[in-house]
């Protein structure tokens, strides 16, 4: 496949080159065409990032007997321990609270992975970016795919808990699929935008790392939002965007009634986030190789 690689922009501050041969009009470095072209070219290389994403997972558990099964096991241990601990603290019944905490945790793990690894997505791939020409979206796709694989491994715990402690599941469980897709899209724009900014300003990753720790406790994962409703301060929880993402995936997975307000918030964040991230991609895509 011949893939035309075109580069260049039109800053007219160079005085013009009289000897320059007339080039066919190539879109500039800062054009929408090139930004979308990057996303498209990255998507077409899915056999590459698909393979790399798998390798990332297999790598982590290489030479261990259970391999990637450890993802599920460690998730199960943490979820059970936290479920029992916080269930006892808040006086919640274990058969509802344990699945609640576990489901919340597995969604949080995905969100957390996208936020943390997202800001380092280009910094971590410095070697590849500087030595191999590839669309920068390739690294974002690889990150999302890796996090999706982690999520699927963790989903085993949810399945086990739902079998052990039956939840009032209904057909709404299917809503978890579009909800997860929304999670993916948002992880994508966030990684792209924070990745680009963090490559330029290296203070961003530590800031983000400390913020996400705080975010974990602000999000109803190990505590229940419903129980706090009586407290007037609880309204501020709604200001935490992650809360809405957790809710849209968790509610269908636990058979809870669907609250459409969360979907509306997530939809709005998706639209705004994608737009801002695309502007970032358009303006600074070509600078990433210079900055890493």
């Amino acid at each position: 496949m011949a893939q035309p690689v075109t580069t260049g922009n039109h800053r007219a501050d160079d005085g013009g080159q009289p000897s320059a041969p007339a080039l066919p009009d190539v879109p500039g470095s800062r054009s929408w065409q090139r930004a979308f072209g990057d996303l498209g070219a990255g998507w077409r290389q899915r056999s590459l990032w698909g393979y790399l994403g798998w390798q990332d997972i297999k790598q982590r558990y290489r030479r261990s007997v259970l391999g990637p099964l450890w993802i599920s096991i460690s998730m199960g241990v943490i979820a059970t321990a936290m479920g029992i601990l916080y269930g006892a603290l808040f006086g919640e019944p274990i058969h509802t609270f344990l699945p609640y905490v576990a489901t919340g945790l597995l969604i949080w793990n995905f969100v957390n992975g996208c936020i943390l690894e997202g800001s380092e997505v280009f910094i971590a791939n410095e070697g590849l970016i500087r030595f191999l020409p590839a669309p920068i979206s390739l690294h974002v796709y690889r990150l999302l795919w890796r996090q999706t694989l982690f999520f699927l491994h963790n989903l085993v715990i949810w399945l086990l808990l739902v079998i052990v402690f039956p939840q009032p599941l209904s057909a709404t469980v299917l809503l978890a699929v579009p909800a997860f897709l929304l999670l993916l899209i948002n992880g994508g724009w966030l990684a792209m935008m924070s990745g680009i900014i963090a490559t330029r300003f290296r203070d961003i990753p530590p800031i983000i790392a400390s913020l996400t720790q705080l975010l974990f406790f602000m999000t109803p994962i190990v505590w229940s939002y419903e129980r706090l409703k009586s407290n007037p301060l609880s309204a501020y929880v709604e200001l935490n965007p992650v809360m809405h993402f957790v809710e849209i995936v968790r509610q269908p997975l636990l058979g809870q009634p669907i609250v459409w307000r969360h979907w509306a918030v997530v939809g709005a964040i998706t639209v705004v986030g994608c737009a801002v991230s695309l502007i970032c991609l358009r303006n600074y895509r070509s600078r990433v190789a210079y900055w890493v």
Partner: protein
Amino acid sequence: MTASTPPEPSIDIAGAAVDFPIFDAKTRSLKKAVLGRAGGRIGTDSKVPIIEALRDITLSLRRGARVALVGHNGAGKSTLLRLMSGIYEPTRGRAMVVGKVAPVFDLAVGMDPEISGLDNILIRGLFLGMTRKQMEARVDDIATFTELGDYLSMPLRTYSTGMRVRLALGVVTSIDPEILLLDEGIGAVDAEFLAKARTRLFELVERSGILVFASHSDEFLADLCDTAIWLEHGTVREHGPLREVLHHYKGRDVLAEMGR
């Protein structure tokens, strides 16, 4: 896929410049960007220092071009190769590259020590623009060439340096590039193997539409190239037939000394 190649490979660069911003710990922090804006300019210009790696590069290469890049260390050879590969987009001017580019800058990049030699062959090939199927068809050929045998199923970390170079060379010389960009650093293998690699390297160059080769080895350049670009301080000092450019660059007729 390679059989149907409607667009001819070509490289067109017009008035291109590549400027590297040099961020030290201070300028790369957000603090400075935010505070700097609020507090106004204090003393010296707070602009990021810039290295002009390439300036006013204008050239045009078509199918069949066999170009040597010569110049002193830091003249911009590697940067020009990366500009041609599309890794760097010019900060001023324009560059347009049509065709499947195979950049061979660092034999080790994209290699993973923890996975087997076979898996590394596949990944390296994918990075060089090949498809999975194409690479699977070439694995046997690479295995014979590298003489690694059963070692190919061992993790790469068990390989000696020489074996790694063999593997990397095996993959790189098995691909079908339209534009081949070579940056020296090919060597470090035993003489017998290098002789074998040479023939494969020549065959690779034969297959590729455009070759740009940066090297300090006159012999290699004379074998592979017919024209040359002499870079000096980031600009093209001379672009012409290999013999003339090398003569001016070295101050003596190097090709004649080699008896060509």
